[in-house]
């Protein structure tokens, strides 16, 4: 055996590959010799946090991942859920945080490209995308540049590829100053019996490389993404990949065409750690070895070393195991779309991962230990301290109308139109609800009445204050947003963004949040079917707020009955669905306290999951029975902001009358959980009575709090505000900030 070993393996080299001394010792024990340079690169690619989930695996295993509709849970490129009629929805969310901070346009673009590839690798045509974006404080010198680049990158890739962006989030907080978050979600539709997996089957079969050529871009990207940032991040720019949505669109069409021929046995896209990760995963999952001949790999640069080829993260590439008799047919399809097609190796029966380059064997490693038997850690963690309820009795008084105007015109609660108008929200002609509502809704093509709803949610300040309750709340809010359109929530994907897990307090946040997510998912029958973990989100030792983004998918049987947030007509009664007559009580961790009183203390509002379920089912039934005219859930900014959003979405005003305590803020701006607003024609007294009684019978309070009409919003105890003024405030923050 002649292993290329021209570069000596030193301690520094090992460390620069992100491998700890004990991990390197494990490599030595495993292979019984010093690794070659290429092998060291392969280990670093496979054993980094991004690819191996070594810090999180122990806890991820505790999440509920199955259910009667789940066809494929975590572990494949994306989760797959049955939606009836022989069809399935395939979806996942994934982060591209570090690359987007270093190079916002390409980082975000390739994040979108990567998640779309995950979806069509499984045989699904992408039908919807969302993006959860988090940036530093608006006045931080980098924020504007990052927002502009990330939004343009998301749009640049998704618009050109041709998938509608139907939802997402944009949030600003100083904790993201040195580390923005870009979490990209994609969903596709496939026939339930034609899902393609990555598990290789059969010995001696051709391993085929498809798509774009391999270049030097992105070498070591996954390792970079598994380390915290310091002041030298500019030097990391070459680790960011460059996207080509045109090639991806061709790759989509070619893959779907190829899949129809029956040629594909296994397929894996080349994402993080490119050729290395895709080949190892296909082999390890199929209990097979893989032999690669790098001389056959299509390259776009000269004299690339084996190390560079194995670690390149060039985009728009796929690896497949094909039926040999279909090779010619497969090649013709790829040539038609102008893509590369090359046989670069074969499956073997020796469970080794062997890489040949220019006649030399440059790597020969045990494939299982690289892949599904990679190291796993039980990192020490400490439970996050719980905060006591603060005393807000001496808060300076703020007029509720002033407070509302300030909130809806603030960085975090203002309209995101500036962002989503840069995304194609209409392409494919199936978008029933575009961004700006509770959830994006897309009609299922080929079906008369069915539609899918999508929502992405998390409230990082809640998670920071109490990881367990915050984890619960992220799931509950996503579930609630789906219910508010009338959708039956089916399943979710989680994108867990945290700091350095080697610090016990950060690990404690991760553990707490996962426990909370698990509890909520179990209580709401909302399994996690795919996901991604992004750790080391910190700069110079300062971590981001813990941000476990939940992306949920729901099914609407009849979209003609779906609910929207805008008031539908004048003269509708406004009903508040909540837990008890204490309509709003919880101000701690609210947007109101943060933005108007600069207070970030206290616990987040607790989530009562049994109530959450009852309320969601009640609302969903009312929508599906066609009994209500509009619906909106309550979240950031509480009751007042929710009513204002319903008014702004329609242009119709409202008058609210509530028995007000001396201090109205908790009622108007408290963020108590598990609440919805619905409207019902006031004239239909019988229906109104029925709904209120039925709510009571289900253990809910359905309170009649006001009526729609006119052109003003009138909250109790303060002046009326015209809907026009609300809209002007709501729409102006983002353009004022960016243009």
């Amino acid at each position: 055996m002649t292993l290329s070993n021209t570069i000596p393996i030193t301690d520094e080299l090992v460390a620069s590959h992100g491998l700890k001394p004990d991990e390197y010792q494990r490599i030595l024990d495993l292979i019984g010799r010093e690794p070659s340079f290429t092998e060291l690169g392969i280990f670093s690619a496979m054993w980094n946090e991004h690819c191996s989930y070594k810090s999180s695996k122990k806890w991820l295993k505790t999440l509920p991942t199955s259910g009667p509709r789940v066809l494929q849970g975590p572990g494949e490129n994306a989760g797959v859920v049955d939606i009836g009629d022989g069809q399935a929805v395939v979806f996942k969310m994934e982060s591209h945080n570090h690359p987007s901070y270093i190079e916002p346009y390409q980082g975000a673009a390739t994040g979108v490209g990567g998640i779309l590839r995950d979806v069509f690798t499984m045989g699904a045509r992408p039908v919807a995308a969302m993006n959860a974006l988090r940036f530093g404080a608006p006045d931080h010198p980098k924020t504007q540049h990052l927002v502009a680049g990330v939004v343009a990158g998301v749009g640049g890739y998704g618009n050109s590829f041709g998938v509608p962006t139907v939802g997402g989030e944009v949030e600003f907080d100083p904790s993201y100053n040195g580390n923005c978050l870009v979490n990209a979600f994609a969903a596709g539709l496939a026939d339930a019996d034609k899902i393609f997996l990555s598990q290789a089957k059969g010995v001696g079969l051709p391993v085929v490389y498809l798509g774009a050529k391999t270049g030097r871009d992105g070498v070591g990207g996954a390792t970079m993404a598994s380390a915290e940032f310091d002041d030298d991040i500019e030097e990391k720019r070459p680790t960011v990949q460059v996207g080509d949505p045109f090639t991806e669109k061709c790759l989509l069409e070619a893959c779907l065409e190829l899949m129809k021929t029956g040629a594909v046995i296994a397929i894996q896209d080349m994402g993080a750690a490119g050729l290395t990760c895709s080949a190892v995963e296909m082999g390890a999952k199929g209990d097979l070895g893989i032999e690669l001949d790098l001389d056959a790999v299509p390259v776009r640069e000269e004299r690339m070393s084996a190390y560079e080829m194995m670690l390149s993260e060039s985009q728009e590439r796929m690896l497949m195991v094909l039926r040999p008799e279909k090779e010619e047919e497969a090649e013709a399809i790829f040539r038609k779309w102008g893509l590369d097609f090359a046989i670069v190796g074969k499956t073997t029966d020796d469970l080794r991962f062997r890489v040949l380059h220019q006649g030399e064997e440059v790597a020969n490693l045990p494939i299982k230990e690289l892949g599904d038997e990679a190291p796993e850690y039980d990192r020490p963690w400490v439970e996050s301290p719980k905060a006591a309820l603060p005393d807000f009795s001496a808060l300076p008084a703020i007029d509720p109308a002033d407070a509302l105007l300030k909130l809806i015109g603030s960085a975090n609660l203002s309209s995101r139109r500036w962002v989503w108008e840069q995304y194609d929200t209409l392409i494919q002609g199936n978008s029933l609800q575009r961004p700006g509502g509770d959830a994006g809704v897309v009609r299922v093509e080929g079906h008369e009445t069915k539609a899918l709803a999508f929502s992405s949610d998390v409230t990082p300040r809640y998670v920071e204050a109490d990881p367990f309750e915050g984890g619960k709340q992220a799931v509950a809010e996503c579930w609630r947003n789906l219910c508010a359109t009338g959708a039956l929530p089916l399943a979710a994907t989680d994108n867990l963004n945290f700091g350095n897990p080697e610090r016990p307090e950060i690990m404690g946040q991760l553990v707490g949040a996962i426990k909370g997510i698990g509890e909520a998912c179990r209580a709401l029958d909302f399994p996690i079917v795919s996901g991604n973990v992004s750790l080391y989100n910190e700069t110079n030792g300062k971590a981001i707020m813990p941000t476990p983004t939940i992306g949920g998918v729901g099914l609407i049987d009849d979209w003609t009955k779906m609910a929207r947030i805008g008031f539908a007509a004048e003269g509708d009664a406004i009903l508040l669905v909540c837990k008890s007559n204490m309509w709003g009580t919880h101000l701690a961790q609210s947007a109101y306290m943060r933005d108007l009183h600069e207070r970030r203390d206290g616990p987040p509002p607790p989530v009562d999951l049994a109530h959450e379920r009852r309320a969601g089912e009640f609302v969903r039934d009312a929508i599906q029975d066609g009994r209500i005219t509009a619906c909106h859930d309550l979240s950031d900014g509480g009751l007042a902001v929710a009513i204002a959003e319903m008014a702004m979405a329609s242009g119709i005003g409202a008058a609210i009358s509530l028995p007000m305590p001396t201090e109205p803020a908790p009622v108007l701006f408290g963020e108590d959980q598990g609440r919805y607003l619905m409207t019902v024609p006031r004239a239909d007294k019988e229906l109104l009575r029925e709904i209120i009684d039925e709510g009571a019978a289900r253990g809910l309070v359905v309170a009649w709090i006001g009526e729609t009409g006119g052109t003003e919003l009138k909250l109790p105890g303060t002046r009326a505000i015209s809907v026009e003024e609300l809209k002007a405030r709501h729409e102006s923050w983002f353009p004022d900030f960016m243009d």
Partner: protein
Amino acid sequence: MKSAVILLPGLNRDRDMIAALTKIGGKAPVTVWQTDTDIPDVDLIVIPGGFSYGDYLRCGAIAARMPVMRAVAEKAAKGVTVMGVCNGFQILLEAGLLPGALMRNASLKFVCREVKLEVANAGTRFTSRYEKGQVIRCPIAHHDGNYFADEATLARIEGEGQVAFRYAEGTNPNGSLNDIAGIVNTEGNVLGMMPHPENLIEEAHGGTDGRALFEAALGRAA
């Protein structure tokens, strides 16, 4: 009522267009691939929107030089009805079938929203089912829709009634000269427009304002 949709790598509103033609015309259009040099006998040829060849070089520039576009030009010369939407409009301009150019939006950003269109000329075979001066709703989604032509060309197309649609009620989203959203050629059988009427043809789209355009184009053909 036979129609054809031109398919080029990177186009992505082809499925939307095929759906619209099928739903309104009652029959699926034939599809013609980039390298085809023959277009079957049809009454309406549509080049849909998207990012053909990744918009590399210049929007529509590579597409305009593909074999299939020579075939489209021949059909157009024979009087066959040809319509290009969004990238299709850009391709028709690059192919010299329509006058002028589309530059980057004045905002320099991609923009997707609904605008208002005024039917500037209801006498074309595409607009005959609208009234002159009628204002319709229509979605747009583009990065390079800023219509430009030199003074003489602009005077000519205005003078000869070649402007089919104008952005109305202050909704010009891209800085187009004279609010131009769509134009026809001198003969009146080739239309190019930036907005997407194919995305507003049924209740699920929230409106049907785009339908009449297809009804006219297909009806004239029938």
